[in-house]
């Protein structure tokens, strides 16, 4: 029923892409970052007009000049960053701009009823009057999907819907996608996680460098072949950690870190008695579902959020942690999970972004930045980390996700902290760059740093770590040598409180 055929001009973003989604199918749109997926989605959702080419819906030629037009055509898009208004209720968000009622008055009762109906269809069992601010990320996503259903969407586009979800939540989402398909709704799924695509999708299209390089049935195509299409090269999937227990001096010791739930914020996470240590020269993985407290622990250790009791020791000495500055001075670094909002200055150049934390090492005459030394440092990291850029004065916002992450990593490497915490090192990064980032993390450990890697992707944790601890509901639930770890073992520790 739905046949979207398109040809685009070859500016840089997209070039003569043909892309067909059939009625009632789940279609995986795959490709490395910068392959053109986002541009394609923006065109389909009416956010950006194509320069050349046409879009056919049910065999009829259509134009999608605006997001409103896309809605009218039954195309709904769920972006990575949600568009919910936090202080409005679930029902208000679902029907925003389309409130049921007459003569300018809102029929609140009907709106609530209709909202509960669509929420049921996506398996969200919340009172529709609940403000979306208090919902978890997964629940907010369900509200977005409910909104798509409420406009009777026939095509729902999801941009990396599982990036911020824990494994259980991912499963639930995939189930809902199955259900949507059985209702005859087509879904375009953009994802970096091929296992997911494999379980839920019917067919796939791979984009590379702005053109479509292959499509087909996903069941009939081995993952290796798809990866090869995406990157144009083989990716190895071995474990990088050491097989024997690591032996190094203790770099950081976290003792009985606790924090009560914040009174004003119900979604904040309680931490109870979190104790662990990391050695110089090892990569310690922290595995946990979303909401397990893994990011909260990282932020507390880094002085970004306060905690109630417990202590953090560096080289045996308890450090004072009132701000990230204290942590940095003590030798701790943090690569935060949200690159764009927490790490980068998008309008500043690559050079300025890279050197921002190490400025004090680059000064002459007290306060003046030594441009020569700065440039040498940037060029040095550009070579060592293979940061692909046109030139160092380019705005960092124009780099791909992988290269942006390398800039953030370089920022900390320049400072040579004793402990570097890396939260979601490869979120939103394509496969090729992922392997490079993993290699960089290993390199830093080999150079004597204690590297703490937090990730929601089990394969990633197992790949880079020497040792893995698991968290659940703000507590440490277990510890494994990476060599002994299997996804099943880790999953059990992450999901059961009294695990062995």
């Amino acid at each position, binding site marked *: 029923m739905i046949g979207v055929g398109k040809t685009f001009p070859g500016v840089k973003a997209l070039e003569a892409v043909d892309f067909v989604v059939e009625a009632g199918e789940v279609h995986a749109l795959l490709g490395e970052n910068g392959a053109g997926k986002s541009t394609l989605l923006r065109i389909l959702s009416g956010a950006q007009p194509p320069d050349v080419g046409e879009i056919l819906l049910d065999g009829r030629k259509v134009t999608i000049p605006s997001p409103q037009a896309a809605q009218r055509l039954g195309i709904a898009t769920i972006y990575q960053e949600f568009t919910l208004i936090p202080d409005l209720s679930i029902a208000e968000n679902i029907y925003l701009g389309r409130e049921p009622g007459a003569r300018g008055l809102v029929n609140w009762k009907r709106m609530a009823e209709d909202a509960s109906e669509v929420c049921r269809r996506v398996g969200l069992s919340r009172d529709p009057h609940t403000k979306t601010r208090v919902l978890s990320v997964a629940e907010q996503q369900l509200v977005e999907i409910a909104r798509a259903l409420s406009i009777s969407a026939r095509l729902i586009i999801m941009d990396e819907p599982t990036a911020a979800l824990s494994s259980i939540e991912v499963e639930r989402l995939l189930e809902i996608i199955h259900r949507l398909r059985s209702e005859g709704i087509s879904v375009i799924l953009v994802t970096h996680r091929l296992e997911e695509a494999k379980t839920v999708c019917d067919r796939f299209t791979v984009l590379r460098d702005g053109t479509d390089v292959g499509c087909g049935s996903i069941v009939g195509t081995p993952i290796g072949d798809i990866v090869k299409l995406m990157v144009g090269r083989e990716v190895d999937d071995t474990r990088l950690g050491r097989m024997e227990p690591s032996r190094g001096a203790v770099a950081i010791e976290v003792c009985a870190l606790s924090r009560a739930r914040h009174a004003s914020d119900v979604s904040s996470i309680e931490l109870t008695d979190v104790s662990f240590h990391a050695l110089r020269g090892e990569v310690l993985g922290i595995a946990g579902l979303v909401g397990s407290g893994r990011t909260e622990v990282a932020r507390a250790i880094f002085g970004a959020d306060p905690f109630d009791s417990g202590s953090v020791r560096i080289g045996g000495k308890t450090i004072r942690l009132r*701000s990230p500055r204290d942590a940095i001075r003590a030798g701790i670094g943090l690569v935060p999970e949200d690159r764009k909002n927490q790490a980068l200055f998008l*309008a*500043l150049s690559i050079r300025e972004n890279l050197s921002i934390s190490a400025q004090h090492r680059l000064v002459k005459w007290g306060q003046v930045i030594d441009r020569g030394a700065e440039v040498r440092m940037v060029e040095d990291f550009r070579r060592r980390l293979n940061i692909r850029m046109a030139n160092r004065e380019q705005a960092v916002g124009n780099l791909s996700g992988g290269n942006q992450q390398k800039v953030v990593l370089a920022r900390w490497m320049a400072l040579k902290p004793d402990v570097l915490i890396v939260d979601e090192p490869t979120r939103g990064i394509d496969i090729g760059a992922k392997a490079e980032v993993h290699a960089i993390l290993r390199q830093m450990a080999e150079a004597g740093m204690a590297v703490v890697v937090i990730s929601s992707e089990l394969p990633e944790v197992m790949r880079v770590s020497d040792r893995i601890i698991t968290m659940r509901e703000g507590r440490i639930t277990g510890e494994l040598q990476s060599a002994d770890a299997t996804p099943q073992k880790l999953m059990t520790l992450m999901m059961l409180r009294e695990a062995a």
Partner: protein
Amino acid sequence: MTNLTETRGKPQISSAAAITFVARYAPFLFLAILMIAFGVLEPRFLTAFNLLNVLRQVSIYGLLALGMTFVILTSGIDLSIGSIIALAGLVAATVAKGGLDERFVIGAGGYGWFAAALMAVAIGLAAGALQGLAIIKMKVPPFIVTLGGMSAFRGAALLFSDGGPVSGFDASYVWWGQGKIWFLPVPVLIFAVFAVLCHLVLRYTRYGRQVYAVGGNAEAARLAGIDVRRVLLSVYVITGFFAGLSAFVLSARLNSAEAVAGTGYELTVIASVVIGGTSLFGGIGTIAGTVVGTVLIGVLLNGLVLLSVSAYIQQILVGLIIVLAVAFDTYAKAKR
């Protein structure tokens, strides 16, 4: 196929580059066009005498705009500068005269221009620090704090002087506003020196880098180890400093200080900074842009006066230009 793409791609890329170029140099281009237009329409405009006059007129606004650039770079705003000028100017004048009782005694003793200037700057620094502390400690938005300051400092100025002016200084005081070195007016030289200084600070020092970082992304700046609160406090101290300095220069130029001095200056100054390409959202902007923005407004007003355009219409035009400058900035950003 690839060749085809390249040839089709090229005009696209260069038009984007053109927009970036225009966006970057828009204030410079606009200033050039304006000067040529006025030069053609009114021969008196492009004379050295008139152009120096324009510079002299804008130098007070210019000094204030330098400070305002720091504040706006951190996505803040300072509405209180006009009122600080009134207060600092009155205090400086009183020091120069040796007390409020001597305020109409022309050329009376007092403590001299240096003590007066020092006092004006001290008042400016204190007022800025007070507001900066309110912003970082009480977490009140800059707009509100400085709106309060705008009212409170004006009130303080009126209270201090009982509403009356303090005027008639000795020649060494007045020189700072009306004097010349060779053919260059002293206020213009002061403006030039501080413009260069601010440019160097913003572009080449750690502190300057931190100002851009805090304005571009305060949370990222905090997590990168920058003391965000100290940077925020400092920019209000800087606007306070320039308000104090301007107060001294203004009182010297007018040979008088009064409680209504500086009224409405904040709008002209914010307009200069924004027209000069500094983003109200923070993180983007340069001192060069601010200098051009300041001169641009001066040239516009001067040209309109020479063309005998009504003062009322001048105000309307300035308003329109501010809105258009921001609209263009937003448009260029979307294209980039």
